[in-house]
Structure formats: C-alpha cells, structure tokens
C-alpha cells in the first residue's frame, strides 16, 4: 500500500493498537456506574432545578401555565370517563374515579418512558461538553413528570370530591344513587407516597437500560412509542380487571403478568383508598431488586461509549 504521508514527519510510528485493560476492569466499571448514579441522586438541587426549568419552559408565556395540563386532563377524564362507564355499563360514581386514578398514573408512566428513550440521545450536546454523571438525564425526566403528575392529581381529587360526596346527589341522573364506594383511611393515604416512590425507583432502572440502548439503536425509541400505545389498551386502565373474570388466560396475560398493570396498581389503588395486592408489591419491589442489578451491569458495560453514540 502506498503511503501518502505529508512532508512533515510524524515522529515514530507506533504499534497498531495497544489496549491496556486494567486488571479489575469489570469491578471498576461497576463501581463507576454505581458512583455515577449515587452522585446524580445526591445532586438533587441540580435535577430539581432543571426539572422546574423544563416545566417553566414548556408553559412559558402561556396564561394558564401548567394548568393547561390540568384543564385538558379534566376535559379528557370527564368525557372518556362518562363514555366508558356508559359503554361498559358501569356506575358513573365508581368508574369515573377508577378511570381518573388509572389514567393520571398511566400518563406519568408513558411520559417517563418516552422521555427516557430520548434521555441520552437528546442531551448529546451536554454529554459531549461536560463530564457529569449521565444518570442525571435519567432522574431529571422522572422529577419533571412527577411534578406534572402532581398537577394532574388535582383532577383526580376533584373527581373524588364530586363523585364521592353528596355533591353527586345534585347532579341529575337516571335511576337510584349508588352508595359511595371509595373512602380513604390512614393506611391508603400513606401507601400513596410509598407507591409513587416504588414506581419512581422502577423508573430509574428502566430508564438506565432504555436510554443506553436507545442511544445506540435509535429504532428502539420508536418501538417503545408503539408498544406503549398498545399497552394502554391492553392494560386494565379504562376497563376493569373484572371483565377478564372467567378467562384465566387473558387475566394472566393482561393483568397478572403485565408489569404495566402492577406499575399502575401500586399508585392507583391508594388513590382510590384501597390497598394494592401483595402480588403488585411483589412485582414492583422485586422489579427494583432485579432491575437495578441488570441496569447496573448494562450501564457499567456501555457507559463509557455513550458519549460516542450521542
């Protein structure tokens, strides 16, 4: 091969590749990944500020601000809640709260997943410019979407107030008024923040895996979007799990083995003053334990390459 060298000499030519692998390469990579995550979580002032900025930017120069979200959610839940309770012939008084609790939780899950699929890819500029823990880009969307969720929750509270208190008696409707179904006690009120925390921890490990894979294979982000759309219809959110009663197979696939169902349940049940099933806790807590192990292995293995991929 002819060697077209420039006329200035380069100095000594060196061996093809010289790869120096530290003896405990795996160990240190895992340690680095763990440190990355720990530093991010500890730097809560940063991700909290960035999330607030995100929300502020989204609604900048609008009159209603984040209450646009509340308003659109309120219209959607009222319309669809009434529609579906009619289609499924469910009492309004129980089905609308059931739908609103499930739907606000679902929107939280969907937005976090969609944001995570883009987490590293869309932060390429900052990843390549400043050496900071990448997991900040995982935690930031979680914090941001939980703030949005907090706003959406207003709608659910209103729904509960309207349907579960005597106000309902003033709304004209055919037939007898069914008795109030949902009521809160201390346990369910305490289980709500616990459920939200469990869900958030699940988001962290899923996000680490999802963002890493999506940084390398951009098609996966599109797959995620498509899958989530299907998952909404395949998960008991606007319909009740009861309709599956009698069909063991469908119940197993759509509820028991459906992680989305358990992620929704762990927050939805306490929102309705109920206690999630032990299976739900087993899946969500077990998911955290196993998920973090898998995530740390994946993340530690590919973390170094992320800056080349974005």
């Amino acid at each position, binding site marked *: *091969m002819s*060697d*077209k*060298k*420039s*006329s*200035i*000499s*380069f*100095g000594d030519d*060196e061996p093809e*590749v*010289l*790869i*120096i692998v530290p003896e405990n390469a795996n160990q240190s990579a895992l340690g680095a990944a763990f440190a990355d995550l720990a530093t991010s979580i500890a*730097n809560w*002032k*940063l991700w909290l*500020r*960035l999330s607030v*900025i995100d929300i*502020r*930017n989204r609604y*900048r120069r609008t009159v209603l601000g984040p209450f646009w979200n509340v308003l659109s959610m309120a219209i959607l839940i009222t319309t669809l809640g009434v529609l579906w309770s009619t289609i499924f012939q469910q009492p309004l008084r129980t089905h609308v709260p059931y739908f609103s609790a499930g739907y606000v939780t679902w929107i939280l899950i969907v937005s976090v997943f969609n944001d995570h699929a883009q987490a590293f890819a869309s932060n390429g*500029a*900052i*990843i*390549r*410019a*400043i*050496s*900071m823990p990448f997991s900040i880009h995982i935690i930031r969307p979680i914090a941001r979407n939980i703030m949005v969720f907090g706003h959406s929750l207003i709608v659910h509270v209103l729904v509960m107030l309207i349907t579960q208190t005597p106000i309902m008696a003033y709304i004209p409707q055919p037939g007898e008024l069914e008795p109030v179904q949902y009521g809160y006690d201390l346990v369910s009120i305490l289980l709500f923040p616990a459920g939200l925390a469990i869900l958030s921890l699940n988001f962290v490990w899923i996000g680490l895996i999802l963002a890493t894979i999506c940084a*390398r294979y951009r098609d996966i982000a599109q797959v995620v979007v498509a899958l989530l759309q299907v998952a909404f219809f395949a998960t008991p959110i606007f319909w009740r799990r009861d309709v599956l009663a009698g069909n063991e197979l469908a119940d197993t696939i759509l509820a028991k083995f459906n992680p989305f169902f358990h992620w929704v349940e762990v927050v939805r049940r306490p929102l309705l003053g109920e206690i999630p099933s032990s299976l739900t806790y087993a899946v969500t807590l077990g998911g955290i334990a196993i998920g973090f192990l898998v995530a740390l292995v994946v993340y530690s293995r590919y973390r*170094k*390459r992320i*800056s*080349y*991929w974005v």
Partner: protein
Amino acid sequence: MTVDRLTVEYPVIDMSRSFRREIMHNWFGSITMRGEGAHKYATVRALQNLSFELNDGDRLGLIGPNGAGKSTLLRTLAGVYTPTSGSVRVEGRISTMFTIGVGMEFDDSGYDNIKTCGLILGMSVDEIEAKRPDIVEFCGLGDYIHLPVRTYSSGMMVRLSFAIATAIEPDVLLIDEVIGAGDARFSQKAAERIETLMSKASVLVLASHASSTIKTFCNKGMFLLGGRSVFVGDVDEALEIYNQWVRQGDAA
C-alpha cells in the same frame, strides 16, 4: 496532569458501508475498519500515542488544522471520552468551555443561568450565590444579564460562559475555540483572569486556529497533526512550526 501514550479511537455509527479496509494517512485522524462480517464498523483514530505532562501554571495551546484531534484531546482530558489505550491522569477540579451556550437555558436570563450552569459544573448553591456578583461584574453585560440568553450575541454568551467557567476556580481549565468570539477588550480581561488563576496553581489547555488567541493565553504550544503530536514546547516555536507547515501546504 499526565498524559501517557494516549490513543483515542471512536466508533462511527451510521457510516456508509463503502469504506474499504484501509488506513489513511493524512492530517485528519486515520479511519480504520474494525470487526468482522456483520459487525464491521469504522473507527476514527483521533489521537495516537500522545504523551505529555503539564504542571501548575502551564498554559498549553493546541494548534493544528481541522480534524487534527484538538477537540478530541480536550474532551478526553475532560473525561467525556475514554482512552482506547494509554492513560490520562488529571488532578483537581475541571472546568470546561467547549461549545457556546451548552447547559444554558435560552429562555432564562443570564442571571438565572449563572446558577444553572454553576450547578452543572459542580458548584454548590452557596458557592454560586457567593460568586454571583463577581461573575455578573466580570462578564460586563450590564442590564443584559437580566434578559433571556436567547437575546445574546455569541460574544456575549462567551463572556458569560467564561465568567462562570473560571469562577469555579478550577485546577484545570479546558477551552475550545469558542473564546475567539469575544472582543479584544474581553480577551484582555480574560487573559488577566487566566493569569490570576494560573498564579493559584492551575493548568489551562486551549485549542484554537488563531495564532493571536494562542499567543494571548498560552505559554506552551502543541502542534497536532493527524492525532499525533508533531511538536510540544515553547508556544512561539510551536506557532513557528505550524505556520511553516501552513506555508508548505500553500506552496504544494
């Protein structure tokens, strides 16, 4: 800061498949095909076997044509890129200024961005609050500091970024090209600030094509070509060799 036999090779995803397995020698980093069959991919060896050492007070200017590996070297020093082989040891707090406006929220005022960028660069809230007046004063933007950053010119953004990046009093300051966007008065002010920083024992690495920028800020020079260091040493000598190389290209 010690750099020992540093080689950085990065994978190119999405390249066209028309590359043949060959190594191109020119003043860009060499492109190499790695892997076999379906797993074949191109890599750019942006830095080859680079070794140097910088001590407190050293201000290194990186010069070289486009694609010589200046930015890759800076990013590797910053810890963004991981060496393929060799090692980089950097001691102390690192501050970087690579791209204009990175980490800034364009709809927020410059004043608010001081806090955001400060946090991103690793400052604590107390530290930021303590240094804010100084940052505002240094960047000399007057009332513009309270306007959204999107209204700034690139020179104004450089002023703000530089003020923040140096306010953290880094042990190692890494700057790419961008500083050239500041005007002459700012350059002078910036050079003074770097002088002060250096007296407190820090290291500066700056990449630029502009000889004048290098001369203003640096006392050492490194001429990079094709990812290799052609010359490291006194800044004037390095510039001399670089200019010689440029003239040589003109003649050819």
